């Protein structure tokens, strides 16, 4: 570990409230240790703003170990910043150079209104899950865990899809602000497991309909979502969603 520090110019989106107008404010962030994480850099800037009598920058964060999915802003045009498969909290300042200008904006999507500064309302993702991102089993109903074998490759693929942290970077990265990667990850997880099959058709139709109703864009296969996903979730899940949807629409009894 080196103990270098760098000076940065930050351009941060400041917006006092959901209805207020926002704009990019410029801040000088001097003496930022390169071993600090991006969020710790924001902590330092906020500390200085507070002591200068100004209101600190509001940003969402919690676990700071890349799993809760709460952090995430667009850094120089990239959700979670420039490193691949890295959440903002795991991005470290050593990936920036002394003198860099860093533009920090909230995710931009009609379905993710800004609440304040860099804090967005991502409850649309919860609504997509509510539409069918579950298996309808009540506590106590389950059969013995090993009564239904699941092929290992299917279980592994399901786990790949289930790794989604619900941060919304896929939507932020998509030129169309489409939520297909998020939705397809959940549909895939359950479509791959025998436990999820009974409701697969209903789930695919309901989740897609819900997603459409929330104001997300349409997938046009730009693949930006896959490139920016901090968990490396593949667009092959989107193809699986497409298959599940076609099957459900054309073959199942669901209307």
């Amino acid at each position, binding site marked *: 570990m080196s103990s270098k520090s760098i000076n940065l110019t930050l351009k941060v989106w400041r917006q006092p409230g959901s209805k207020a107008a926002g704009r990019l404010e410029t801040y000088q962030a001097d003496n930022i240790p390169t071993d600090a994480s991006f969020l710790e850099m924001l902590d330092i800037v906020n500390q200085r703003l507070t002591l200068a009598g100004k209101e600190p920058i509001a940003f969402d964060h919690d676990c700071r170990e890349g799993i809760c999915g709460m952090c995430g802003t667009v850094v120089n045009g990239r959700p979670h910043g420039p490193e691949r498969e890295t959440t903002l909290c795991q991005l470290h300042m050593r990936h920036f150079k002394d003198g860099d200008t860093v533009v920090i904006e909230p995710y931009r999507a009609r379905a993710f209104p800004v609440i304040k500064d860099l804090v967005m309302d991502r409850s649309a993702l919860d609504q997509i899950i509510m539409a069918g991102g579950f298996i309808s089993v009540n506590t106590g109903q389950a059969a013995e865990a090993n009564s239904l074998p699941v092929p290992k490759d299917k279980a592994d693929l399901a786990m790949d899809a289930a790794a989604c942290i619900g941060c919304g970077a896929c939507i932020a990265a998509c030129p169309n602000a489409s939520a297909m990667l998020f939705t397809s990850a959940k549909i895939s997880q359950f479509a791959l497991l025998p436990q999820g099959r009974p409701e697969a058709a209903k789930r695919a139709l309901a989740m897609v309909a819900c997603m459409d109703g929330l104001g997300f864009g349409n*997938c046009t296969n730009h*693949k930006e979502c896959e490139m920016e996903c901090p968990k490396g979730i593949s667009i092959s899940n*989107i193809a*699986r969603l497409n298959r599940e949807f076609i099957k459900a629409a054309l073959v199942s009894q669901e209307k």
Partner: protein
Amino acid sequence: MTWLYRTLSTSVGKKQLMAITGLLFLLFLCTHLLGNLSIYGGPTSFVSYAEHLHALGNLLVAAEVIMALALIIHVITAVVLFFENRAARPIAYNVDKSGGGRTFSSQTMPYTGLLILGFIGVHLATFSHHIVDQTTRNIFLIATDVFSHKGYLAIYLLGVIIVAFHVRHGLWSAFQTVGANHPKYMPFIQKLSIVFAVIVALGFGSLPLVVLSLR
């Protein structure tokens, strides 16, 4: 049939319309190119290909109707998608960088599509047997005539290149949309997209040169 309408109005449904009509166009491009390559056999074989094609009669008309319908669906759906997608991000990013997913082709699909639509108009106006009288002049003479016109030649070559770019994203994208993404085949389909785009560009692009050289 409300279920069908509902299905086709969803985002995934609309994408299916785009993909299936798109795949039809790809099929059309294949046959169109294969047929037209008969020019390499000299004017006679070229003319004979055209005559055989026209001899199909109602079958040809049926194919044309299907293509026209496909075109209408493809264009209308594209327009809807374009505006929906714009509305999904009302505030643009101040800095917008790619993570390496989008390509020039994928980003320009609506625009290349629009240009192709215009090109199809010009192309039909200058070549189609419905518009251009093919009873007095054969197709080789028509082609020679049209391609001798420098302005049209430029439009044609540009059109072909634009089609190639559209196809470069469209081909693999259509497979992905209909759900055909398999780890064993997808890498091949993605390469095929590029190869096919090059074939389209070179294949169609070479036609005027051959025509003019045989003049």
